[in-house]
């Protein structure tokens, strides 16, 4: 132990020194503030985690996609003592959620909500009670998620849609409550709650209110978080098939929906044709269709596809009272495909919740599916990527995210203002930079509402920053923007902002979903700094290399890959959600062909990858060509035969 302590002290000194020097050198990383710790498991225990629950005594319970429920004693590896795993239950049907209530664990299996109880006190479940069973057709995609438990003890469970047989791309609700959120009362009665879900993997219970996230797919332009009130319709029409049941809180019918919007069910040569993105069209948006269908619920917060996730999962609020760092009360959202966690803050504007999303922590070993709090304020992260693919290349596991005790330089939150936004920081900003409009950049955009898989970002517009006001303590900045657009996603980047000790913002981009612009007092021009230095931030070096015929280097291309979200799914040499760039290079596509594939991907070319690429017509042609040239430069093989 003496030795351990000495080593710890030594490490602490090294870490402290390195953080100090890195911060000065602008080399800080997420790990300096939040560290991922991998929890060991016995060799024969396969943790394809579908649910994580924290027990009152601090043990962690996990359910796995293989149907087991493990209870882990000393999950945090305290005192360098490895955790102990006890099989609490087994044989469940691919459970994708786990919750604790009143001495029992509850899990959503594919076809039912099950209460698992240990009645004889031997630490193993001996009663597997069906709380409520719902019908399913037996399609593989009919996963069920949950439960989340409301303050009154009711259970919320969500159900994936199935897909069509011939129309394998079309989400279909083949049985009641597929594509729905169900509220199940403790006595086993069902209260249909809301529909419009496609793949509602992430549920969250915050202040007794239900939230869910979905990811891009047919009718889902991008991932996002919806506040699911009773009677909500969140956009995917499959579940409308059941709005005729007597207790349906959603009244919109399939017929009414199809009368207003074309689902593009088209046959050609006797076969259905998969709808593809139409570049030149006047698209529908969720907000325009909301005028037709008042029950349509807009996402409170978009999680822009490819930037803040590609397959969103658990939604959980920081209830650690500071043990997890400076983001008390804020929301964390997992992402399976990108193996990371995002941070979300919501506020109520004109009676509806909306808010902002940031990147928070990446680098998990596998797909982040479920999260829950340990009693020490650590976040336990249950992972799996089997059949789905993820940036983390391990197939499954359990990790723990621990706050190191240091406060990162971050935007703590962003609030909508009548004339722009207020950004609150975790550490004070250096005023001269914060008052310089050149420290800010931004754009706004939106997604289409159409039966195509995913959506490009459309109607993109640069934000016009007109002025800025920094609070006296340097903790807040009001930015005034003269082209706010209601319903649009506003991307705000702070490339030039520094903390008073010189740190740049760890995650310098915020995505605010401006469903409502608040009323209120606007800042007076006299209050604003309108200084705009020329030198603060220059455009990316791409422009300077634009005319060169030689293929760009990685250093030149990386900003383009990041900006256009390519790196969300592609790595240079490793297979992730999408193929490695080097593997694409081996295909020897012409540069023009790569550009064409960026705009209209052909997922069938990569049958071994599970997640299809969404069309990216928003990538500027010039940049797409540069990316293509760079990809092809990765092919070290001899040129094609003459």
């Amino acid at each position, binding site marked *: 132990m003496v030795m351990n302590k000495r080593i710890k002290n030594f490490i602490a000194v090294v870490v402290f020194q390195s953080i100090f020097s890195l911060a000065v050198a602008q080399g800080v990383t997420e790990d300096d503030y939040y560290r991922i710790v991998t929890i060991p498991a016995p060799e024969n225990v396969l943790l394809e985690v579908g649910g994580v629950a924290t027990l009152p005594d601090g043990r962690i319970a996990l359910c796995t*996609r*293989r*149907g087991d429920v493990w209870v882990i004693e000393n999950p945090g590896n305290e005192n360098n003592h490895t955790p102990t795993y006890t099989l609490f239950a*087994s*044989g*469940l*049907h*691919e459970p994708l959620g786990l919750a604790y209530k009143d001495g029992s664990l509850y899990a959503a*299996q*594919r*076809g*039912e909500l*099950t*209460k698992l109880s240990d009645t*004889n006190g031997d630490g193993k*479940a*001996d*009663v*597997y*009670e*069906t709380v409520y*069973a719902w*019908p*399913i*057709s*037996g399609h*593989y995609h*009919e996963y069920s998620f949950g439960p989340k438990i409301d303050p009154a003890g009711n259970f919320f469970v969500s159900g994936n849609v199935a897909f069509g047989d011939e129309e394998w791309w079309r989400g279909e609700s083949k049985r009641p409550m597929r594509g729905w959120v169900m509220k199940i009362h403790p006595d*086993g009665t069902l209260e249909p709650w809301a529909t419009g879900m496609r793949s509602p993997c992430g549920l969250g219970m915050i202040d007794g209110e239900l939230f869910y996230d979905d990811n891009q797919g047919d009718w889902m332009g991008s991932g996002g978080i919806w506040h699911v009130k009773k009677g909500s319709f969140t956009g995917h029409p499959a579940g409308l098939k059941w709005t005729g049941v007597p207790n349906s809180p959603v009244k919109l019918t399939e017929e009414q929906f199809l009368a207003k919007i074309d689902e593009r069910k088209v046959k050609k040569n006797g076969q259905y044709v998969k709808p593809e993105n139409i570049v030149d069209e006047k698209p529908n948006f969720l907000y325009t269709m909301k005028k037709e269908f008042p029950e349509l619920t807009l996402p409170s917060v978009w999680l822009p596809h490819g930037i803040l996730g590609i397959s969103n999962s658990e939604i959980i609020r920081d209830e650690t009272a500071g043990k997890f760092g400076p983001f008390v009360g804020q929301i964390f959202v997992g992402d399976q495909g990108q193996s990371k966690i995002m941070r979300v803050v919501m506020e109520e504007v004109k009676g509806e919740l909306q808010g902002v999303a940031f990147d928070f922590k990446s680098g998990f070993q596998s797909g982040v599916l479920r999260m829950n709090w340990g009693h020490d304020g650590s976040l336990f992260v249950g992972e799996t990527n*089997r*059949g*789905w693919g993820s940036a983390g290349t391990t197939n499954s596991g359990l990790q723990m995210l621990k706050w190191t005790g240091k406060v990162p330089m971050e935007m703590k939150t962003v609030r909508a203002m009548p004339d722009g936004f207020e950004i609150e920081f975790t550490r004070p900003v250096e005023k001269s930079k914060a008052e310089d409009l050149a420290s800010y950049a931004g754009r706004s955009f939106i997604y289409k509402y159409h039966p195509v898989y995913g959506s490009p970002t459309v109607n993109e517009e640069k934000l016009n920053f007109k002025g800025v006001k920094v609070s006296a303590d340097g903790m807040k900045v009001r930015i005034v923007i003269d082209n706010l657009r209601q319903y649009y996603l506003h991307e705000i980047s702070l490339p030039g902002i520094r903390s008073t000790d010189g740190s740049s913002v760890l995650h310098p981009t915020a995505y605010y979903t401006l469903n409502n612009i608040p009323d209120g007092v606007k800042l007076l021009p006299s209050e604003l700094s309108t200084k705009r230095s020329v030198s603060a931030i220059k455009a990316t070096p791409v422009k300077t290399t634009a005319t060169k015929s030689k293929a760009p280097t990685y250093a030149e291309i990386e900003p383009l890959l990041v900006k256009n979200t390519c790196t969300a799914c592609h790595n240079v040499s490793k297979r992730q959600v999408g193929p490695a760039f080097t593997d694409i290079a*081996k*295909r*020897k*596509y012409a540069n023009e062909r790569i550009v064409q594939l960026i705009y209209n991907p052909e997922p*069938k*070319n*990569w*049958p071994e990858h*599970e997640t299809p690429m969404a069309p990216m017509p928003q990538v500027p042609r010039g940049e797409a060509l540069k990316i293509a040239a760079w990809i092809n430069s990765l092919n070290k093989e001899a040129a*094609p*035969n003459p």
Partner: protein
Amino acid sequence: MVLLSACAYAQETPLKVISLDDLSFFKPQTGNWQIVGDVTMNPGIDIHQQVIKAPAGADKKNKKSKTVPVAEPLKAVTFVAGKGILLNINDEVKKDHIITTFEHGDIELELEVMLPKGSNSGIYLQGRYEVQLLDSWGVKNPKYSDIGGIYRNWETDPAKIYMGKAPLSNPAKAPGLWQTLKISFQAPRFDAAGKKIANARFEYVELNGVRIHDNVEVPLPTGGPVENNEKPTGPIMIQGDHGPVAIRNFRYRLMEESKVTASEITYKTYSGEFQDVSSLSTLKPVKTGTTPQLTAEIIDDENNYGVVYSGSITIPVDDTYQFVLATTGGTVMKLNGETIIDLQRGDVWRTHKVSRKLSAGTYPFEILNFKTASWMPPRLRLAVSTPSTYPKELQAFNSYPPSDNPTSPILIGVGNEPRLLRAFVDFKGDRNQRLTHSIGVGDPSGTHYVYDMETGNLACVWRGQFVDATPMWHDRGDGSFKPRGAAQFTFMNQPLAFLSSPIQAFPAMSKESEFRTKGYAIEESTGRPVFKYVYQGLEVEDKIYPDDQDRSITHEVVIKNRGTKTGLYYKLAEGSSIITLPDGSYAIDKQFYIKSGTPATVREVNGKKELVVVVESNVKYTIIW
């Protein structure tokens, strides 16, 4: 992407029937074999038990179990006159084997067999290689001498000893039930001098749908052959001296190796992103040449190429020939000037199948192929077969090699305690009859079942290994597992219901308001689940457990608050034929038996026979198979 096996191909054409309308397919015998219309075997009577009652008939030199004539009044086997079933009832005098008049070399064979308790027979391919037939019901570790085993011989010369081969598992059913046997056999091969150059081989043997031998050679004749030698052909022989046996649905297909050849193969390759084959004839080839075998290896580009192969195919005899052409990319195949395959898409990997009647002769062929999808490698396979010949692969091995990424199976066994696993289960293997709220219960004894929680129904029973969860847990999976054994499915609907009349059908499934599953509790003493549901206010508990040396499954249905409402029925079984046996049990299509603790009745609903009981208090019955 895997080479088709011969059996998968051969199933496309029907087998020849060995007519059991009479004995004309067989050589004369002393009369222990006869043609009958129906046969019933009393599963309670061991043919050896009768030895005690009958005068001892000694046949001491026989190495296998003894048997004597079936004696009155204890009849293990009864039959009715008619056609369709070949039945052996031997005695001390009449105990011939039965031998087909035809001989075979390579053969695919299917039959159904029924044995009484304790009986023993065998089916000899070429009269020389015996697949054992034995009442092996309930045997947990089958040997070469159990049903499906490849029997040993009794030679003493070490060079001639063959010790037999045990079946991979024991899917045997109870005596008196029909069991299906499928065999694909390849005869030994001999050179021109008559020297054996390849052993006889069972390509597969399947008993009750379960593969029990997979590509095993038999280097020597097994015990008791028609002649103790090996030859290119021989008759089928069925053993008749060790007890009764019945055979029906006897079918076969003679197979031989194809003599189709391809010759004079030349090729031309082209470079470019072709959309169709039209320009291939006009362009200047990148490369031309000849090749002894068809092969895509001559293509230098991985993608964006065109290639034209030409040559001749020699057809040895008049017949219907099936051409199986698998290529990556777009393909046109011409045979004797006729375009027989035409799919001009550069981004597909397809297996084309086309049949033509051809006279013996040599025909020119041409294959035009182009590929524009980089994810697949250049591949070409051309196999030719007829209804009686195995596919002849005309390409080089590397032109169509096996997948280098095979799937490792995920097999779930049972440890010291029962293993429960929920999954979708395709009833009788049919995806359209998928059970969605089903659970498999594996017992350490090796006797397992599937229970459908949506209807409270015992849907399937089997013995052997537990389940194959690969379909559920490989990659995304489809949520289902498959029983590993000869799964005996029962029926699909809810078995407990109030019926307004004795002829009313059972509901497929009650409304949610009438039927609610309550899950299950684990019984502490056994680790077994007790399933619970509520039907119209009745609280029902289902206990299901292996019984009778783990050979059967007993199902107890306990209704905690039965009350007095009448008209409550429980369905025990359904089928097209349900007969009552002397011991009071019921044979369901002679596929399985039901023994009911309370009197049951057979009724007919919607053209189906049903075995039902009126539920006074509880229900208890046993499935025997």
